[in-house]
């Protein structure tokens, strides 16, 4: 028994000595705490924190909590306990962002954005800021204003492999600009795989377009690009509102493009079951002529194959009626805690962090696109190619209305069926329209 008592006492003393104390906070200097989830940007953030401390005398603690899903849980739990740091980011949809604002966790940055003839606001790409803005009469019931500062942006577009272009006898400086040119390249890829002249009689094993189309949102993104190009934004939004049916000739045209791409050989084998990591691997290893990927791929390809020679391009246009649209906008944004005692200092730091020099440093060291449009002249060429297309960027988050998720699912899975030859574009359009009508009827019933 004596041994037992000794053991339990030792344990209790041990707990008291080692476990009970929280680490001491540094005192004296003003400290701003920032929570983030961006592992790849952590060293650059730490460097910027040092620079800011040297410049402004304010210590900035960047605290990394990864992976992103665990970070989201931490932010939600901290919001419940009112323990959010001075600056943090929110991952999720716009309605999550709105719920944080309405719960009083996010500071309205509008006065700072608008100050000095909107100097801060005008430094950003307009579309990067849109994700953080709530307009008059927004459906979330949030007071109009800007509630976050973007620190980087992203676009999703096409990439082409310059080495494989040369092998196919194409000019690596001239990527296809029309849909017909894209289909022609598809035919060349098929010929090369059959052992045609482009490969000197040998079967090349070359793949066409690779992308993570097993994740249907990427198909949706690609299809939306062409929908905007053929019928324009208004008609796409009218379809979402239920005013234009999916059986409209323009929508059938969009669906037919996938059939044409499959038939021409421009799509890689098994693209409908391909995850993006596999697609990235194929493209980075010079095995695919095209990729459809986000601007984050610059970093991915650099890690997989630093010598990869490639360029970024807009998806080749199928119509001259409307401009080609790509998905893009703010990549990551930071918000200031409404309850923070250091709100003013936090805003000052965000203004500094989103300044052209700091943004250029972030872009150079992390290969992410800067949110500050004045920083693009100082970034690597391939990133600048992505940034150049920012004017073509759009995103469902800024459309102000969204399609029923079951309709999106049916549309995207329908495209997969077209690619594998299971259904025709007309069949898919009809099926999607039926689901759309069913959902609209349900909505009317609820009202």
């Amino acid at each position: 028994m004596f041994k037992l008592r000794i053991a339990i006492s030792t344990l209790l003393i041990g707990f008291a000595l080692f476990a009970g104390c929280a680490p001491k906070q540094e005192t004296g200097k003003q400290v701003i705490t920032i929570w983030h989830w961006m592992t790849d940007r952590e060293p650059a953030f730490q460097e910027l924190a040092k620079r800011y401390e040297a410049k402004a005398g304010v210590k900035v603690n960047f605290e990394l909590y990864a992976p992103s899903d665990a970070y989201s849980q931490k932010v939600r739990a901290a919001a419940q306990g009112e323990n959010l740091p001075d600056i943090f980011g929110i991952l999720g949809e716009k309605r999550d962002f709105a719920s944080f604002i309405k719960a009083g966790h996010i500071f309205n940055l509008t006065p700072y954005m608008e100050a000095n003839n909107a100097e801060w606001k005008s430094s950003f790409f307009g579309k990067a800021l849109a994700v953080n803005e709530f307009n008059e009469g927004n459906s979330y019931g949030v007071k109009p204003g800007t509630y976050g500062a973007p620190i980087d942006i992203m676009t999703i577009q096409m990439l082409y492999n310059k080495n494989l272009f040369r092998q196919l006898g194409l000019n690596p400086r001239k990527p296809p600009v029309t849909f017909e040119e894209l289909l022609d390249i598809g035919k060349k890829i098929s010929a090369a795989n059959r052992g045609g002249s482009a490969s000197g009689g040998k079967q090349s094993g070359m793949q066409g377009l690779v992308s993570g189309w097993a994740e249907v949102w990427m198909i949706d993104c690609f299809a939306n690009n062409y929908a905007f190009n053929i019928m324009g934004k208004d008609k796409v939004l009218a379809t979402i509102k239920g005013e234009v049916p999916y059986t409209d000739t323009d929508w059938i045209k969009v669906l037919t493009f996938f059939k044409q791409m499959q038939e021409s050989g421009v799509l890689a084998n098994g693209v409908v079951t391909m995850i993006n990591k596999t697609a990235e691997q194929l493209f980075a290893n010079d095995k695919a002529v095209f990729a459809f990927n986000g601007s984050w791929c610059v970093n991915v390809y650099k890690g997989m194959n630093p010598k990869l020679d490639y360029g970024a391009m807009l998806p080749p246009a199928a119509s001259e009626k409307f401009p080609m649209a790509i998905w893009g906008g703010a990549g990551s944004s930071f918000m200031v805690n409404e309850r923070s005692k250091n709100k003013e200092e936090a805003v000052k730091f965000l203004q500094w962090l989103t300044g052209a020099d700091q943004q250029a440093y972030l872009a150079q060291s992390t290969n992410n696109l800067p949110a500050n449009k004045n920083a693009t002249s100082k970034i690597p060429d391939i990133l600048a190619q992505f940034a150049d297309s920012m004017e073509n960027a759009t995103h469902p988050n800024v459309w102000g209305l969204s399609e029923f998720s079951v309709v999106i699912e049916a549309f995207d899975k329908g495209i997969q069926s077209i690619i594998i030859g299971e259904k025709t574009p007309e069949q898919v359009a009809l099926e999607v329209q039926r689901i759309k009508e069913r959902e609209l009827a349900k909505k009317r019933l609820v009202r």
Partner: protein
Amino acid sequence: MKTGAYYKTKKASINLLIHLFLLSVATTCLFPLIWMVSSSLKSQDVIFKDTSLLPKAFHFENYYRAWMEGGFGRYFLNSIFYTVAVVIGIIIISSMAAYAFSRFRFPGRNIMFFMFMAAMMIPIPGSFVALYVLLNKLHLRNTSFGYILCMINVGLSTSIFLLKTFFDKMPKELEDAARIDGCSKIGLWWHVALPLSKPVLAVVVVFNALNVWNEYILALIIFDSRPLMPLQVALTTFQGEFVTNYPLLMAGLTITAIPIIIVYLLMQKYIVKGVTQGAVVG
């Protein structure tokens, strides 16, 4: 008529089939580990091109880089401290509780036991926010003590269930003899029940040690201070939003797997005993 040779051949064939099956199961289990070690010795650009298990060039420096860049030193100590503290806490509390549930008759015994069992059904992530708010109110958030308490709580239900099942089957005559010798209730637990339950305790130790060693989401939520984080958090250093440094991640995983493999090897004979004695009933 079937001869002896026939039976010998039949036995040999069945043995061969059994061994082939066991070999395939063992290969399936070992392959990820071998792949992990193999990948930890490759470079980032080679890992996507060379899929062979034997790397062409061995990059042993990955282990040094993983240790230094991940800051494994401090996290390693933290994880050892949390694992030891939680496992000891679980063993003491669950064995006492299981013994009481098995041997004593008191009001509400069944309800309390079923409440513990019901807790096994709640997934841990479902209780994160509640735990966070509770620890915050108790001023135990961002403290090792708060984390240890949470992890003890997480491991209690299963451990009580395992130990109670064992104590229920334990012959009462041994305790009667000890009682005649003047043993108190707590003495019975310490001198009789605990020494006899070594095989089950081994299962409880390995099960909970593995659980605490691999846990990181709760730690990430409760701790704001990086110096308090456990080892698993260090692994996230190599895993970016879009880019993952696979060689360093695999080197880090190999480092983190070693202690738990050692614990398992040390406890192996007790675990086998525990399982064969019906410790993991249900």
